[in-house]
């Protein structure tokens, strides 16, 4: 059995920090790549710099917030129907 001192390498703070740094580097690289890539945008907005990046981020934040707000009305204890 693993104990607290012998955490799996994947969950050690150092690895997690590395993953964050690596992740941000990858994101930056992908946005930067937009400068050199010219696809065939269909609507105009999809051809603008970094569109897919900001759109993905914004809509996901919006969906999480919307779900959270909806949750205030819709969430019930998971024993709700057992009564």
């Amino acid at each position, binding site marked *: 059995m693993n104990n607290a001192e012998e955490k799996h390498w994947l969950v050690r703070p150092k690895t997690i920090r590395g993953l964050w740094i690596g992740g941000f580097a*990858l994101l930056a690289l992908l946005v930067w790549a937009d400068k050199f890539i010219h*696809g065939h945008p269909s609507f105009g907005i999809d051809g603008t710099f970094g569109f897919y990046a900001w759109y*993905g981020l914004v*809509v996901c934040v919006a*969906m999480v917030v919307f779900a959270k707000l909806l949750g205030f009305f819709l969430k019930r*204890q*998971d024993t*709700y129907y057992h009564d």
Partner: protein
Amino acid sequence: MISDFFPGIPPGIVLILGALLLPFVGERLRPVFILGLPLITLALVWRLTDGASVVVSLLQYELVLVRSDSLSRLFATIFSIMAFGGGLFALKQEKILELVAAFVYAGCAVSVALAGDLISLFVYWEIMAVASTLVVLSVGAANSNRTSMRYFLVHMFGGALLMTGIVIHIVDTGSTAFTAMQPTSIGTMLILFGFLINAAAPPLSAWLADAYPEASYSGTVFLSAFTTKAAVYVLIRGFPGAEILIYVGCFMIFYGIIYALLENDMRRILAYSIVNQVGFMVTAVGIGTEMALNGAAAHAFTHIIYKALLLMSAGAVLYQTGKRKCTDLGGLFQSMPLTMICGVVGALSISSFPLTSGFISKSMISQAASDENMFIVWMLLMAASAGVFLHAGIKFPWFVFFQKDSGLRPKDPPWNMRLAMILFSGLCIGLGIWPEPLYAILPFTVNYLPYTVPHVVNMLQLLLFSGLAFFLMLPMMKRTLTISLDVDWLYRKLLPVTAREFVRIFSPLDRFLRDMVKGWIKIIIQAVQRQNSSEGLLAQTEHAGHMAQWMVVLLAVYLVLNFL
């Protein structure tokens, strides 16, 4: 070869009849049946020549039990593959009822895909509803029993709509043929509603997330594949280009995402994501171009594989831990590495990551929206693609395999379950890298290249920034021991509570009214009794002379009337 031995046998019948033999073959022979039957079915499907091949007469109608073309073949193929993979995963399932029901269910799905007329389609459609109910019912727990009855009632309602629609349509047109329709008459509209109920379209979407997670670890794998995808098949064949489907599909896409985001049960998350994915297909059917219909068909094909894979991974966790809530799980990657890797492959596929099967199928649907200049639909599809990664692509593996250390250290599941997961993971990646074989069997010629540099970079941007949003918003996504109310609240809560309150409020009035009527009846009985008692008027004896006297009076009256 095989069809030489079984000439004229509809492929689905092999699965159905073979399933009925499962309880009678010994334990040693059972795996041979479970793995062999889907392969024989698959071989028979591919031996079919295009056109109607098995036609029987019923009254004045001709039933085309087998009508093969590229669309039928595609769905019959994936249903057979799914029966094989699901069978392998369920090889050690002790409840034979589940296996029998699942194989009858699969056989009927194959038969629906091959049915050339509305009557035989309806018969197989309804047997599917019964068989899938039995898959849930076979668990035998109180909760699954109740759930299966709710599931059954919803599908019987859908079946009633479908049957009414079919009857009206046949009377209107004089034809039983199952061909493309427009929802412009009562008959075709009812048929469409019947189909949409099985696709888990609004307003009755809740049956899916209610019932599927209550099946066994292997039952849910079968359930995920057939009902909704058979509905997608009939929509592609029956209602291509019906505009209403674009709106229905878009609603389903976001309904699935939002409810999955709120959910705590890992298999219910995946159940909501079925609605989400079927939403993409329904939208594509609504767009209705060749590219869109190819996209819907291809996405149904890849979806069956990766969704089954995801539910196999979740089923393996349930099998090994007995737990299904995200709040109880976490950190399983340490002891279930293979299950985690296969779950991640499924998660990447559903998210349409490059080099996975979802990438080569879903992108055809957004391309179709783009080709048709449907800006809003395209924007919604893009948002939904990001949302899929959010709710299924990351959320499922994160909360089950990573998140926190739950302290659980279960091992990977038995060999047959591991093999099924490896097989389906291989298919997900194989189709992602080499989509041509799938493209070659789609209903229309494919003029589409998924792997262009801009497309890959754009999708990676969309998905990875969606991933960033997930980790930034993680505090808001903390799992709670909750469920989310859905339309099923109406029949699970409102209706029973209303009925109970109705009884409570109206039972005194009811008692008062009944007492009052009983009082009247008592009075009448007493009066009758009085008249019939020994002193009563009707019980008294009369002299014969009285009768003669009255006869004279009557004759006199008659005589007078005669003179007048």
